[in-house]
């Protein structure tokens, strides 16, 4: 029996009269790979925004590492070990690929403001170590050769990968991936899913994966939560989800199953 890493207790997000997410409860165990799926507009990204404190839930509680996080700022949640990628890609566009990754390295840096002005040996040591680590991370996704290119110059698929690398640089315990395969072709998607499985093992990560394409997550997720209109309609193993009439209805009602 593994410990609960994250627990959401009936979190609700209301925008005006619209309940984007309605008293949703779920948990994620240490080391799990959980999928959060649902048709477009089901409220998946809103869930991420609440978990990472970008939005403050209208009601409900989020427990991460046995501590409530709702009142924390997003950067505090990130430093505690929960990080994320963005569906609409939010890279630091005008900075280089390497710089994007370095910014995640807050935990690796202990030199102060004045050390960086005087360029002390501590500054040089830590910067060197941080850069080496960043290059290693880039290498996992085969991006090390593009380290000095501006992030905006990368093709779409690589920008998504860079978002994952940047998130990994913060040394997370839980990483939330928001449609990491959006816009990729079949082969790229397949490769990406393999890489996600691999980093999960190598970095002992827990992963929460948003995807609206059901087939994608079936292969790698151990447990899947299905959201529709802000409400959890099903939860269970891929087999359970695949044969659930509620899920099929939700998807057929909204669009064809891919």
């Amino acid at each position: 029996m593994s410990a609960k890493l994250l627990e959401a207790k009936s979190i609700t997000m209301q925008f005006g009269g619209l309940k984007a997410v309605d008293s949703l409860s779920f948990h994620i165990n240490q080391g799990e790979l959980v999928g959060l799926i649902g048709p477009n507009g089901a409220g998946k990204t809103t869930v991420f925004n609440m978990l990472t404190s970008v939005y403050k839930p209208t009601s409900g509680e989020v427990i991460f590492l046995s501590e409530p996080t709702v009142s924390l700022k997003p950067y505090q949640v990130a430093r505690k070990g929960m990080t994320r990628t963005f569906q609409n890609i939010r890279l630091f566009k005008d900075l280089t690929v390497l710089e994007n990754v370095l910014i995640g390295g807050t935990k690796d840096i202990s030199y102060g403001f004045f050390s960086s002005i005087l360029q002390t040996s501590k500054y040089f040591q830590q910067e060197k170590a941080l850069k080496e680590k960043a290059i290693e991370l880039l290498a996992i996704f085969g991006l090390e050769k593009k380290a000095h290119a501006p992030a905006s110059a990368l093709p779409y698929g690589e920008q998504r990968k860079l978002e994952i690398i940047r998130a990994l640089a913060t040394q997370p315990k839980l990483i939330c991936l928001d449609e990491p395969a959006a816009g990729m072709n079949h082969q790229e998607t397949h490769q990406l899913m393999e890489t996600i499985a691999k980093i999960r093992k190598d970095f002992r990560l827990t992963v929460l994966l948003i995807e609206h394409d059901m087939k994608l997550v079936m292969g790698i997720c151990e447990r899947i939560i299905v959201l529709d209109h802000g409400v959890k309609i099903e939860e269970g193993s891929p087999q359970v989800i695949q044969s659930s009439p509620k899920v099929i209805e939700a998807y057929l009602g909204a669009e064809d199953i891919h």
Partner: protein
Amino acid sequence: MKKPLLALIGLIFVGFLIDLSFDAFIQLTLIYVLINMILAMSLNLVSGFTGQFSLGHAGFMAAGAYASAFLSTIFPMNPGPMQFVYFLFYAIAGGAVAGLAGYLVGLPTLRLRGDYLAIVTLGFGEIIRVILLNTKTVGGARGMYGITGPTDFTLGSWTISKFLIGYAHAIFWVVACFVVIWRIIRSHHGRAFLSVREDEIAAEAMGIHTTQTKVRAFVLSSFFAGVAGSIFAHYANYLNPASFSFNRSVDAVIMVVLGGMGSLSGSLMAATIITILPEALRPLQEITGVDLRMVIYSLALILLMILRPKGLMGTKEVNEFWRKYVRKTS
């Protein structure tokens, strides 16, 4: 620490040559160029590197200028070879007061975004000016006269001119400001500034405390604006709240934008151009009989925004162009 030191010594030597070959008017203009360089670089830290648009930079310059001038009435300068140390002390104190003002202004306002921040900083700049205008101890609307400035002194058979003292002090701060900002930008703290400019929400998700980062940038920027004010106060020997009006803040913004947001060397170039341009256009005034300088200046600003919106340098530094050129030719 070697390179900046060498640069400083070299630049002071240049000042020595200027001292011998140019008249007082050109020397004064040069000091103003240096002051504007500090002003532009410091505003660039906030606007160019951290992406927070401030329209109240003159207010912080004023805070530093008045604090420094006031301090010099309490701790009068000793007009000997130790002058330099006094000016350094005044400048640091002026910078500290401006930095404190920056902290007080920044903490509540930096939550605001874009245009709103611009307007609030404008408001604070004006409020600092109105307060000075109504403070009798610093002369109110009449201004503050007879502020101690550099004086000539002899060292054996050498005469060190007051220009050289003022110049050395100003160039010291230009180098310091450049080195500090340059190096911070190349550290984790500076990358935090850049990430805030690029995307605040993503920066937070990477564990960057964006509010703290913005306040830090603002305080450091205000500190250097205060230093620029201090140099101005002691070289001009006279202060008036009208010198720190909204137009001076706009001047600083124009320098940063002309040079390129996020380019220190661009700021240095733009400060030089913007300070010298009105002087260079003076003959035009004599021919036409009317003062067209500011008309041309504002028209140039509009055209610059439409035709070359990234300024002279964009976010690049001179040495990056240089490297590219060398690579191409070799």
